[in-house]
């Protein structure tokens, strides 16, 4: 068994950083509020959700033909289409393309898929310089951390953190934490890299089977610079990104940014159909567990995800503990249901890092039953024997107690007696998590059952 990520411990450490946690919670809740504001202006929002969900379900239940249609149309436009079964093959295919073009440095825009495949360290080990162009991703790259949010990867950092980081890595003034100057500094630092890069890489938000093209949505325009300047464009696309027709984009583009940030659209919604004038385009279609998940009746709906981040914005657990507490490429509620599919052992604690409030399900633009899937992962973890020992033992004991009325009543008496008579330091100790931040309930004189027997049953 791999060593498990401990989301509770990580969350606890983030919460201990009061300014970080309170800022993070406030900002990310603000994104949820902006989403609400945007949705209020679209009366047909719930119909759009239903449409989006059905388009995705249709595509996934016909995925083979849409993949083939996409490949044929993309190839006709002059793009080179490659396929990769898993992360390792993806990285090898990308490396081969870059080698063939003698690429020494590349600049990339945000791609969760490339992050998932561990592409950057793979390429760097082979001597290719890789620069993230999205500001949040670059911040995370310079910090040697994964992104903490799908849309705003460094939202867990305070401006003072970024100021210190930039001072160290790109020579800015450590005392200047104004986001304007920091962003300007990064603009000046990144521009030469765009100009010098031998290749630009992107992911894709949507791949359109009917046209053979794909769409990349950014706010910075970094994907547009990275693909319009260097002569080579390589795009990594998960097979679940397919949608059937150009007009389906209307539904998704209307929902994506409203769900993510509350703006009607991202600043740049970029469509790529074959190579640009004077350029070359390679597309890598990647499976990496997606076809497996397709075959799972309980979990295939997670493949509908359009990576908007609305679920993390609304999630009360995500907002308090931070995105790094998930220890995975995908954080927040979508991460909880995706990550165990990549590595159940490593991510066995994630399904419990949720109060099952259900808010994620309500905001998901493609109607993924996220909260239900979180609940469904739990018996799978238990059945694999991967529950924490204390929980396994505790639940076994609880199950036996509650199965037998007499045992239950005896336990109630014992507990009440204990709480009443033990000195305070005993129940309130490090072994009893409840008592760290909360008082224990007081003990009533009798249980309801005892009252009922006295007052309603004449025996």
């Amino acid at each position, binding site marked *: 068994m791999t060593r498990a990520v401990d989301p509770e411990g990580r969350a606890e450490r983030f919460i201990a950083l009061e300014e970080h946690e309170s800022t993070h919670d406030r900002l990310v809740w603000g994104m949820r509020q902006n989403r609400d504001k945007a949705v*209020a*202006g679209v009366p047909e929002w719930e119909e759009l959700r239903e449409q989006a969900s059905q388009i995705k379900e*249709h595509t996934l239940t016909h995925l083979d033909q849409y993949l083939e249609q996409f490949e044929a149309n993309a190839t006709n436009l002059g793009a080179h289409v490659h396929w990769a079964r898993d992360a390792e093959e993806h990285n090898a295919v990308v490396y081969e393309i870059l080698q063939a073009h003698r690429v020494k440095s590349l600049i990339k825009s945000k791609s969760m898929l490339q992050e998932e495949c561990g592409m950057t360290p793979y390429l760097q080990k082979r001597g290719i310089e890789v620069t993230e162009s999205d500001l*949040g991703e670059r911040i995370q790259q310079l910090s040697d951390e994964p992104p903490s949010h799908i849309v705003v990867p460094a939202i867990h950092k305070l401006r003072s953190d970024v100021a210190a980081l930039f001072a160290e890595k790109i020579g800015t003034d450590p005392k200047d934490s104004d986001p304007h100057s920091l962003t300007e500094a990064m603009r000046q630092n990144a521009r030469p890299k765009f100009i010098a890069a031998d290749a630009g890489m992107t992911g894709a938000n949507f791949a359109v089977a009917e046209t053979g*093209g794909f769409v990349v949505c950014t*706010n910075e325009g970094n994907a547009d610079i990275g693909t319009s300047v260097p002569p080579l464009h390589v795009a990594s696309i998960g097979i679940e990104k397919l949608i059937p027709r150009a007009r389906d984009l209307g539904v998704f*583009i209307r929902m994506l940014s409203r769900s993510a940030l509350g703006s009607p659209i991202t600043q740049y919604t970029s469509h790529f159909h074959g*190579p640009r004038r004077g350029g070359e385009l390679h597309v890598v279609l990647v499976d990496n567990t997606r076809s497996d998940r397709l075959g799972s009746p309980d979990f295939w709906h997670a493949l509908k995800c359009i990576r908007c981040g609305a679920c993390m914005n609304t999630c009360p657990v995500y907002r308090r503990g931070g995105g790094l507490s998930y220890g995975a490429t995908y954080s927040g509620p979508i991460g909880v249901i995706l990550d165990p599919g990549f590595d159940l052992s490593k991510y066995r604690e994630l399904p419990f890092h949720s109060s099952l409030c259900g808010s994620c399900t309500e905001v998901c633009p493609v109607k993924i039953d996220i909260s239900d899937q979180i609940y469904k992962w739990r018996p799978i973890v238990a059945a694999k024997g991967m529950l924490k020992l204390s929980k396994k033992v505790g639940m076994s004991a609880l199950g036996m107690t509650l199965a037998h009325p007499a045992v239950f009543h005896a336990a109630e008496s014992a507990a009440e007696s204990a709480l009443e008579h033990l000195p305070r330091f005993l129940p309130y100790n490090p072994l009893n998590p409840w008592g760290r931040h909360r008082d224990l309930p007081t003990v009533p004189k009798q249980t309801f059952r005892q009252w009922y027997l006295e007052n309603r049953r004449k025996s």
Partner: protein
Amino acid sequence: MNARDAILAAVRNNMPQPAVPLPEIPGSEWKGVKHGLGYKEHFTRLPEVPGAPGVNEPLLAYFRLQLEAMGGRSFEAADATAARAKVAELFPDANVVCSAVSEVPGTRRVEDVRDPHELNDVDLGVVRSPLGVAEAGAVWLTQAELVVNALEVLSQHLVVLLDPAAVVETMHDAYGQIDLAASPYGVFLAGPSATGDIEGVIIHGAQGARSLTVLLLAPQATAGGSG
């Protein structure tokens, strides 16, 4: 078995049953952004929806409002001369003005650019968009209008000419009018480059254009004088 065949085989093997039919999208029957609905007295703290036009208000006004919300700005221009004057007024310090349009000649013609790297010194790019989308405050640009795609993102500032009659309401309307596969590159551009990555503070000019200015002017027949 190669990767392609293996993946397709795995997909075919695993596709869920029953298959789900493809829904028809009402498209233009859905009328885009309206006055906010659903606010009830119980949730008094929900924010106000900024002024959205009613069904009968002109599209152009709404387009201009949304563009501004996205960080861009717009001006009317009576003719090519007025457009040139406005550009000069807004960008007095622009040295390198690279233009794709006849109405504003600029100091460098994008048609003369051999390589996108040459555009790294451009202070101001001037292009024309064939289509605006009101609900998004966005303009559509393709390789046809940009000639060199990098003009859109390497220019420090961008001016986009747009025929005020060429504005549609929703993204559904827009996708209904454009032929995606006709151009290797096409972008809905809504405002300048932006980011909120540092503590959620919105900054304009993150990587691409620092500003986006739309000049509302129908295509003019001739350039109307030089310079």
